[in-house]
């Protein structure tokens, strides 16, 4: 699995030079009404993510760090608390950060929001990495049994309201 990690790193440099990386995260929000939950899978570039944690919390994590260690997990949970949210009926939904996993050339973060009483609409906010990268783009895919929508969030638009 180690080999996967370095792929991202050379993505940064293996260019003649000065190539800009693309700063994009992709989040899949799956609303499972019957289970009273929204399952969220956030995919980020591992180096962006570690960079964000290090900057935010003055840490020295690197690509070899185990992100599922309790201390690191708490850090990520704190970061997500500030930067990823779902609001339904003016209530910020509680979430549970399950952990993270390396997958292909990215890190996947798994988060579960509790959602009760089948609200008519929800508001998703995502400001991941925006404090770090001015041109960060956060893609939201929202999916229920009957609908599927995609949104592009960035510095100027950090949240979206979806009718259910």
């Amino acid at each position, binding site marked *: 699995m180690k080999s996967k990690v*370095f792929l991202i790193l050379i993505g940064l440099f293996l260019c003649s030079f000065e190539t800009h990386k693309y700063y994009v995260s992709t989040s899949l929000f799956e609303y499972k009404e019957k289970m009273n939950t929204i399952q969220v899978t956030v995919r980020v570039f591992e180096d962006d993510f570690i960079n964000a944690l290090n*900057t935010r919390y003055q840490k020295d994590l690197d690509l070899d760090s185990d992100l599922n260690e309790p201390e690191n997990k708490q850090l990520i949970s704190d970061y997500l608390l500030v930067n990823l949210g779902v609001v339904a009926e003016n209530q910020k939904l509680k979430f549970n950060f399950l952990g993270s996993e390396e*997958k292909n*050339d990215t890190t996947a973060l798994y988060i579960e929001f509790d959602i009760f009483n089948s609200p008519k609409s929800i508001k998703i906010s995502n400001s991941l990495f925006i404090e770090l990268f001015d041109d960060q783009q956060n893609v939201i895919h929202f999916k229920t049994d009957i609908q599927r929508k995609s949104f592009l969030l960035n510095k100027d638009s950090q949240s979206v309201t979806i009718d259910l």
Partner: protein
Amino acid sequence: MLQSISKLFVKFETLKKLNMYKNNFIYVLILLISSTLSFSQDNVEKEKQQGHVNVNKFRQLYEEFSSPNMFRTASGAPGPAYYQQQADYVMEIELDEKNKMIYGNETITYTNNSPDILDYLWVQLDQNVRKKDSPSLKIDGNGLRSLYRPSEFKSEFVDDPFDGGFNIDHVLDQNKKPLSHFINQTMMRINLPYPLKSGEKFSFSIRWWFNIPDHVKENSRSGYEYFPGDGNSAFTIAQFFPRMAVYNEVEGWQNYQFWGDGEFALPFGNYDVKITVPSDHVLDATGILQNRKEVFSKEMLKRYNKAKKSYDEPIMIVTQSEAEEAEKNFSNQTKTWHFKAQNVRDFAFASSRKYIWDMMSVKIGNRDVMAVSMYPKEGNPLWEDYSTLTVAETLKTYSDYTFDYPYSKAISVHAKQQGMEYPMICFNFGRPNIDGSYTDEVKFGMIGVIVHEIGHNFFPMIVNSDERQWAWMDEGINTFVQYVAEQKLGEDYPDIIYPLEKFPSDRGPAELITRYMSIDQRILAPIMSNPENIFNLGPNAYGKPAVALNILRETIMGRELFDHAFKTFSKRWMFKHPTPEDFFRTMEDASAVDLDWFWRGWFYTTDYVDIGIKDVRQFYVSPEPGVKLKEYLDEMGIPMNRLGSNIYFEDFLNDSSNLKDGSPLDNSKLLNNYLKENYSDEEIAKLDIPKYFYQVVFDKPGGLVMPIIAEYEYEDGSKERIKYPAQVWRKNDDQVNKVVLSDKKIIGIVLDPDLETADIDKSNNTWPKNQEKSDFEKFKDKIKG
């Protein structure tokens, strides 16, 4: 319905005129409407449709391509009137280590091989991109972030920008008289005293100096790295002299400004360069060293001669302990290194007293080429173990797929975070931790960048494309061959990649580009875009074209056809200036594979691959007309008996007579009788009559055309793969039906099972729909234990 009926009656009338038997009318009628076992339910009369121009994805690229001519032929080869300009340089360069400055004096002799008369010449002043008032510092939008580290804050808001532009002392003609010139950003126009006619030469001299950037801080292609531990610097110097721009029949003068991303367009020429550096530096550069006896110690010479005969291990020319010793002194004396290079498009050098230096010979064809590495001790033990070996392996593999490497040496220099290529020399990252330990990531990253940058000797240093206009032509093509070479290296040196089975290439395999190709369309640009206007140069100009070529080789053309055509392109344009069209045309011309649709989709659009299975239906042979057909006959008022005797298909879903498990022979007396009347029992026994009939509907939500690779899995566990060529989409770009016949029941279908087409959405690639758990659920199960 109105429309389809009226259409039918036209056909009906036509048939009548042909005086055919009545029953046949009905048969043909039914054939016409039921050819795919689906009856039109179209009840709405449409508005009158408008015409359109040719939008077929398989139309030829006549509108995109320029007309072939005497310079460049329709076959993709240089034409009879092909020409290229030549720029020869004689230079004297001085490195001022203490003040981090370069002083230079050059005489350029420019030969006008074009049929045109030139009134002026354009010279490139690339370093002007680093002038503190350079417009390139102002072209990117920016904004304040909500948090900064103190060092970032200082460099971003407090420090003055580095001033690293060229300072031109003078431009003189052959008689040492000032020559009229004008500087526009990174381009200098030389106003010729008299028009330069075809076939004539013009010589002029420029004297200049500039401040060398700290390439670690400035993130620059050329510069120095400072080592605070011993107070030394390592200089990796390039774009350090005013260079001629390219003039040709495609662009006129290629004087598109250097903004920072679009690299270089340079003519070939011969170089005679003397570089003066502190006497305790070691230096290597583009070209052949002319005064080895003056600048080498006796011991170094002895080792060098040994290296010339060493084909399996590098010989140390300067050892680590010698380099560490040299680090301690800072000589005030200087030494001049003299190089000559024939037929190169550029010149670069690296110089430091910190350098360890090793060399090994590698046989390319019947010639010996020197594989060379120079690195500070900070690169060890990684560099002494892998650099020169990687250089040698790269030269071999690239030569196999293109042409024999024509230069006498190839140098890999270690610089902290550079990855940059020049003729015969390149600067590469990959640094171990201070204690010498390193991760696999650092090791494979270092090997990967060396393969890439050494590979650039072929593209664009020899196959000399215009990087200023087309980043993909050198980066993409090179990244593709890099992938092939990395895989070969993994096969040849399993110990290096152990315990992996393949070299972990970061670019090349189709699957690795799917994430990029599925991002928001607003931040995508076609490959055929100027590099300055591309959002993400890495995946756009490196990753995507590399995948495209890999798909051509593995999935569309096959290795034999591809490799021959690719080699043809490389050989045709060796030491010449190809355009994208020359590449596209040659790949077709040498292979007889029409690829216009492929170039159009992959290179001229931001479309992506997404092919899916929309519907799968099973049919059986029935003695009676099926439900749908009956309904249709009723509606049309055609009595059943008018149909005559036929073999009918019925959908499994409509089975009411328990015939669905019967074979065609079980179910159709008519077929039985027909066979018995016309064939012997023996012959009938030999017939391969399929038992299962399926109709599969493939759809294509993605804009890119691709072959459909379908793997059918049968009841008994066996699998069969059918590849429908991309042309299957030529008449319907949205969906295509396919009848699949078999003796065994199909229990599953998977599209693109080896992930070779870069299909961005796999959720529609399986039938029955994949019931596999999502990543989220799998992870949740896992942590629950």
